[in-house]
């Protein structure tokens, strides 16, 4: 061994460097965590004791375990929104089935129950995603609704009992005074992962995540790998649910839901790329602990309450930036490109500086003309076959829902009031769908929608304060502010190379902080009579906003289908590199896309203010997931490039009609949530991609 090491110093050094490069994300996350720990230790009064470490380790364990599962799904190119709901479900299942009178509880048994529940849910997801080839985001979104309903059926309020034995085991010490048990649990899961990664399955997992078609071509059973991924991930969420049960000693049906977004942040901060193929769970564990450490940082720095989310957002962006510092990072590439442009400008060889001469070949134009003359335009349904196939199911389902409403509740089809309500209630998502839809078409996601809505409404209501005249300057101010928000998002994503999820999540937090500081916790002012009139008055049977919506929908269809901007958006979504090579200004287009999304959100904020008569904090919170759901239900592909605005419109009308139907019944909320999930799942079944012949 000595001789071997001595003989090949170069290759050993090279191997080490390669290993470092490959695990850069995880290493940087570890370094950031170490720095945060150091800061806490340095500023806080006492030294960091074993007790602190032990407590920190248990604090982050639930999200770390769940995020490991999420990482595996993301590595395979998927996306899992049901993770938080699984944690809640396992929590209530354990707490409602343990017997408080029993002298002890079997740790192995209950852990197995928790993991089993998680895996069962994973198998459900996996079946629809892998076997039926449906989009992960819709399937898991539906699963999330269904599980939330089931969880409430098991336990409709916090309570229940989890044996203290579980807590003693999971929160105790593996080696007293040296090694806390939560770290051991995470370590065991990571070891299992390393074993799995080394097997054929592990290779297949990364292959499927990198390029499913190539993976299938080399003989990997893509369906099986995808199915297994969701089952394994479900097991991880299940274990996280067991851990939280042990930690809290009881159950709360809402405990898992808020973990979802921070889980994605943990994955990205840990260096895993959304879209698959790169990264790993080790970095994720560090990412999860970084996010939990933020709580302690805020405390030792005594950041006041209103600024907490601002500080958090800033830390998130900084952590993501730190993770992307390298020669190949987007920021570095952009800086090099800027330098090259500057050199070219000095030398006078920038394309813009060259003489503007038409250099096209004359022959090309002729043949183009001949081609056009030769073939007649195909029929409408042939030209738009693909769009129709993906957009129609939403409308068919809408029709079904309306018929069911008529039969069940009466007064729907022939009742103009019903249609007017449907359109007014849809109008918010109609607008959001354009913004979120365009972002999704480029392969991104805008999570800053809720507080862009919130802050727009609050600032508008405060400035307007019941005066129609004030609308004249308040509307431009709010829209310009939205442009600035969108610009910040787009700039961070396009030029700094921060992942859209992290960037917009951070922006959302920062906006929440600004809204709180601006309003001092109590949003002032109310909407003006004109704005209220638009949203609530009736011209005959039609509310004015409905007329505006018709104009909006036409403009949106033209914007995405008939303008260069729209074509660039589709181009970017279909392939970033191809788009760049065909001369699309990717950065500029991305910034415009996020600005469009922010402006749409601001318009919704304004509409909601008119609709409710006032603005309130958190008024946008209920619009994030629906804005994504309608886009995908309407036939768009979450990875970008495919989708038509009219399909999204169908998605909006379908989901709104469904909610109206459910609201008209007296079914309990749990049942409604389950029905809602099932209908979304059923609607999208029709959209699934057919097996390739």
């Amino acid at each position, binding site marked *: 061994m000595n001789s071997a090491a001595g003989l090949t110093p170069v290759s050993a050094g090279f191997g080490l460097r390669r290993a470092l490069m490959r695990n850069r994300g995880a290493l940087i996350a570890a370094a950031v965590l170490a720095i945060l720990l150091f800061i806490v230790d340095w500023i806080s009064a006492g030294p960091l004791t074993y007790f602190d470490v032990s407590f920190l380790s248990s604090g982050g364990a639930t999200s770390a375990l769940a995020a490991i599962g999420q990482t595996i799904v993301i590595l395979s190119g998927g996306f899992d929104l049901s993770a938080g709901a699984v944690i809640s479900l396992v929590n209530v299942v354990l707490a409602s089935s343990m017997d408080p009178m029993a002298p002890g509880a079997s740790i192995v048994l209950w852990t197995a129950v928790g993991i089993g529940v998680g895996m069962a849910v994973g198998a459900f997801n996996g079946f629809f995603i892998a076997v039926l080839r449906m989009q992960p985001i819709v399937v898991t979104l539906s699963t999330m609704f269904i599980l939330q309903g089931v969880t409430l059926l098991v336990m409709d309020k916090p309570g229940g009992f989890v044996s203290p034995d579980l807590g003693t085991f999971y929160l105790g010490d593996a080696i007293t005074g040296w090694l806390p048990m939560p770290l051991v649990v995470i370590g065991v899961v990571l070891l299992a992962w390393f074993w799995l990664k080394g097997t054929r399955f592990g290779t297949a997992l990364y292959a499927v995540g990198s390029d499913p078609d190539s993976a299938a071509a080399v003989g990997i059973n893509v369906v099986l790998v995808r199915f297994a991924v969701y089952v394994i991930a479900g097991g991880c969420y299940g274990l996280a649910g067991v851990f939280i049960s042990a930690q809290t000693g009881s159950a709360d049906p809402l405990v898992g839901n808020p*973990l979802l977004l921070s889980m994605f942040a943990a994955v990205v901060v840990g260096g895993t790329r959304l879209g698959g193929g790169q990264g790993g769970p080790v970095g994720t564990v560090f990412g999860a602990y970084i996010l939990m450490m933020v709580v302690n940082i805020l405390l030792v720095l005594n*950041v006041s309450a209103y600024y907490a989310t601002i500080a958090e957002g800033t830390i998130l962006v900084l952590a993501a930036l730190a993770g992307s510092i390298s020669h190949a990072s987007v920021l570095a590439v952009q800086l090099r490109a800027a330098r090259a442009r500057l050199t070219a400008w000095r030398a006078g060889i920038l394309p813009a500086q060259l003489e503007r001469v038409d250099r096209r070949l004359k022959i090309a134009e002729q043949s183009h003309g001949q081609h056009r003359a030769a073939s007649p335009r195909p029929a409408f349904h042939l030209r738009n076959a693909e769009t129709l196939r993906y957009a129609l199911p939403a409308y068919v389902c809408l029709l079904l829902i309306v018929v069911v409403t008529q039969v069940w509740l009466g007064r729907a089809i022939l009742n103009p009031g019903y249609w007017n309500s449907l359109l007014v209630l849809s109008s918010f998502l109609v607008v959001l769908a354009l913004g979120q839809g365009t972002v999704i078409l480029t392969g991104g996601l805008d999570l800053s929608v809720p507080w862009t809505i919130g802050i727009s409404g609050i600032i508008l209501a405060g400035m307007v304060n019941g005066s129609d005249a004030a609308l004249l300057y308040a509307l431009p101010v709010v829209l310009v502010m939205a442009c600035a928000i969108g610009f910040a998002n787009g700039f961070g994503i396009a030029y700094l190379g921060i992942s859209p999820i992290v960037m917009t999540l951070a922006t959302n937090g920062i906006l929440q902080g600004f809204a709180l500081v601006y309003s001092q916790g*109590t949003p002032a002012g109310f909407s003006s009579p004109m704005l209220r009139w638009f949203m609530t008055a009736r011209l005959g049977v039609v509310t004015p906003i409905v007329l505006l919506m018709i104009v909006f929908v036409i403009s949106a269809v033209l914007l995405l289908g008939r303008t260069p901007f729209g074509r660039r958006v589709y181009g970017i979504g279909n392939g970033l590199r191809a788009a760049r090579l065909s001369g699309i200004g990717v950065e500029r287009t991305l910034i415009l896309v996020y600005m469009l999304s922010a402006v749409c959100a601001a318009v919704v904020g304004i509409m909601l203010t008119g609709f409710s008569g006032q603005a309130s904090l*958190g008024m946008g919170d209920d619009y994030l997931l629906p804005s994504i759901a309608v886009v995908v239900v309407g036939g768009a592909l979450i990875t970008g490039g495919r989708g038509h605005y009219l399909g999204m419109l169908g998605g909006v009308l379908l989901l709104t009609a469904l909610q109206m139907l459910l609201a008209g019944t007296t079914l309990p909320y749990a049942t409604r949530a389950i029905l809602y999930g099932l209908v979304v799942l059923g609607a999208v079944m029709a959209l699934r991609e057919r097996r390739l012949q």
Partner: protein
Amino acid sequence: MGIGSKVRRLALLAGMAACAFGISAAEAAGKHKIFLSMSYIGNDWQAEAANMVKAMAAHKSLADKVDLQVQVAGPNAQRQIQQINAMVQSGAEAIVVYPISPTALNQVVKNACDKGVKVFAYDAEITEPCAYNVHIDQLEAGRVTAEWLVKKLNGKGNIIAITGVPGTSVDDQRTKAAKEVFAKYPDIKIVGEAVGMWSQAVARTELSKILATRSWGDINGLWMQVGCFTANSMQLEAGKKASELLPCAGEGSNGGRIQMLPEGTKVEGAAPPYAPAGAQRISYASPPYSGALALKLAVEAIEGKDVPKTTILPLPVVTNETVKLCDEGTWAEMKAGCNAFKPSLVSNPGWFGSIFSDQTPEVGLNAALVGQPEN
């Protein structure tokens, strides 16, 4: 409010953001170190309660005794667990907490108690026995409001119920208690039920959905945890006269209180629908002063006074018979019986009006609005 003040406010905002990271050097000797752990502050109630706690800490009777630090955990129980522990580690004598979950915090609260830290939960409950709880009786809230509605309807009619956040104890207790009352009257029918999330905006969306297949004429009364102000506004928009508004049992928002005043009452700053309409109402609330009271009790507990583990606050109930407009909203004035505030002072109708307690003379309207204590 002119543009000038708005601009100033924005500038102030930028300035404050710059110094937000200043480290508190106020390790003042002799002061009790008390932490406030809030959950999600992105809604009106939480922010109002936080203002009142801050005002209480700034009142002259407590300012020399208390070093209060306010922290936010967000909606995530895991983080609140970690936050409370970090507070214990950094030497808290007492922790006032708005618990995200009544059960999830039990272990960490027990751990805090074992180290001699007093833990006070306000508004919602912590089930760990060593914790102090300050809240109203939610069952009573559900029962009293339902009984009022039944009486208004003479035991007969179709009603719509808008509930709170599903899966929380508070919503569960209120809704269950109300439904038990309704069940005793076979002629009372709940014809529509929706989740209102304790938000006026959500209440409006949900009511619109229900009314898409029904008309106001089919409904005789409303039981809402939050949303009567919105429901009344919607009826007025639909062309009803103020005298035809349906009886509504619901929350203590100031907009709702103003609507309860007899139609035609002169009120400064009122503009429809935030204006007197003689609406038939019972207005109740989880009072936002509970956090301030919890802080006061926490100081008493630290100083060795005997504080009961559970403080059940009297249910603040206002009906058309007892509603009365305040002039300035001082504590003394509220003590004399006023309970609604002019729109010129409180411009947000969704703002919660139940801020009076005879146990908290330190805080009045200014405390709830901007965090300034009474003199």
